[in-house]
Structure formats: C-alpha cells, structure tokens
C-alpha cells in the first residue's frame, strides 16, 4: 500500500486516539475534509496492509498493577535466532519480541523480549520456567527490570 498525502493527514489525526463519541470516524473526517466512508476505508486498507497492526484500546500496563516490567535480552547464536525468536514470540505473556543489532563489545545481545507481570518474583520464575521448557539454558541472557518512567505517550510520526 502506498500512502498518499491524505493518508498522512489521517494518520496525524488518529495517532493520538479516536474521539470517544458516537461517530468517531465521521468526526475525524470532518477535521480533515474527508467523509466517514473514506476514513473507514483508508483505515481498513492500512490494517489490511499491516501498516496498522491493530486498532483498539491501548492499555497502560503499569496502571493496571503490572508494575514488574522485564526486558529480557538474549545473546543468541545467529544460526538459532529465528528458531528462538519464534518460540519466544509465540508465548502468551511475552508482549514484544524483536531482533536488534549487537553492539560489540558493549552489548552482545541480539534478541529482546518484553514480559509484564504483577510481581518481580513471578516474572523471574516465569523466565526460569521458559528457559527450561524452551531449551534455552545455553543461551546467555540478562533481565532488565524497568524503574522510573520519565515519559510515556504514543508515537507521533508527523
């Protein structure tokens, strides 16, 4: 899908959230001079093509008591990266799983997973279990719990 100038205006208008009113798509359309049907069609096209991953309620884990947020980083041998990434990415409670570049010598880790839990001990126990169940004992990993949040909001591209 190729985005046109109209789509970028639509993205700018919806990225901060849809209005909580009866006819949100019509309201968005009014702001940028599109009719409701076009707004819906273009959002649908962006969902179909994967530009929008999902459309719905964006939850903030922290406020729901999920305060134990662990980023688990793994130094996976290149030839096992896809296998391990797919295994971890499929687990229910892993919300993100990305390959990122190593930055040697400071940073040898190339796979990043995010786990949200209500208690630190439970998250650590979950990680221990998955290391066993997924056969990852020989892959070095490190757990980075999050601390203070200095800023959090949705991405703004425009």
């Amino acid at each position, binding site marked *: 899908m190729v985005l046109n100038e109209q789509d970028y205006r639509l993205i700018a208008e*919806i*990225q*901060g*959230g*849809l209005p*909580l*009113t*009866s*006819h949100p*798509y*019509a309201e968005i359309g009014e702001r940028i001079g599109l009719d409701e049907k076009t707004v*819906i069609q273009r*959002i649908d096209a*962006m*969902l179909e093509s*994967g*530009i*929008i*991953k*999902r*459309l*719905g*309620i*964006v*939850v*903030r884990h922290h*406020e*729901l*008591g*999920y305060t134990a947020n662990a*980023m688990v980083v793994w130094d996976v041998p290149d030839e096992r990266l896809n296998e391990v990434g*797919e295994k*971890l*990415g*499929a687990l229910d409670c*892993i*919300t*993100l*799983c*990305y*390959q*990122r*570049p190593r930055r040697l010598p*400071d*940073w040898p880790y190339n796979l*990043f997973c995010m786990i949200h*839990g209500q208690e630190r001990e439970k998250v650590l126990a979950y990680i221990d279990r998955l290391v066993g169940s997924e056969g990852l004992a020989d892959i070095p990993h490190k757990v*980075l*719990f*999050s*601390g*203070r*949040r*200095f*800023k*959090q*909001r949705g*991405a703004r*591209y*425009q």
Partner: protein
Amino acid sequence: MATPAPIIKQAITQPRRENRTKDAIPLNDLEKRLLNEYQKGLPLSPTPYADIAQRLGTSEALVLKILDRLQQLGVISRVGPVFKPKQVGASTLAAMAVPEALLEAVADQISAYPEVNHNYEREDSYNLWFVVTAPNQQRLEQVLDEMERETGYDILYLPLEKQFHIDLGFPLWC
C-alpha cells in the same frame, strides 16, 4: 554517527514525570471484558462503540463512560491505531549508561525532545532507555547526534531488525 546539519532547535516540551507510584486500579467484569476483547478489532462501522456495547450486552453510553474514565485514570492511553514500526517514519530503541546521580537530569534532557515517546529507567549499567521516532531516517540520526552532544553520553543505537511476536494486545491474565 554522521555530522549533522546545523541544529534546528525543536520546540521544547515540558518533561512529564510519570514515576508516580500508586495502587493498581481495580476493574469490574465489564471493564475487564472490554479491555481484554477490544485491544484489537475495534469495529470499522460508523458507530463502533454502540456495536461493542451491543456485543457486551450494555449501552453505548456506558461503554463511552468507561473508556473516558479509564483514559482519565491513565489505565488506557487511547483508543486507536498501533502502527507497525518502520512502516511510517523511522524509529529506534536507544540506551545510555548514565551515572546514577545524573540520571534524572539526563532523563529530563532526553524527555524534552518531542521525538521521544517513551523514556524510562532500567536496572542495568545501561540505565536510561528511550524510543525515538522521526519522520525519516535522516532526522532520526540527527536527533540521536544532538542528544549525544547535549548530554555528553554515547547512545546505544538499537533499531528493530525483525519482529517475532504477533501483536494482539496484552492479555490481563499474565
């Protein structure tokens, strides 16, 4: 990193401190269902909230009231799209190793960039982690360079290379 073009000073937004600690907000059954079932698949109909209400056996007014309240409380950040990284604009995860005593001050410098959407502490020698988003790769690198110069700390530049998970939102049973 490449030498950037002359610095265009961005409008500096006030850094928002979000490290308040407070108890988890309790949810009733309807609120839980709403959050579990509609992190994706918001109806693309003229009246999405009325459609949700119908499926949950309640009224549009109550759905809107709940969403509005949860947004006010900060339990939900928005009802809207989550974009696939790298499809629109350029973004990256970045990290810095900052002496503990300077962490808040450096964090404030980083948060002040409008290109930063998440900025938080992690327990590691790399203790400041943030996400930088820009309209294009050139601007992204320019911002990272500017941050390194302003703070005096090197940035670990960790752009996404491959995504393995399927983003379905966050199940509340984890």
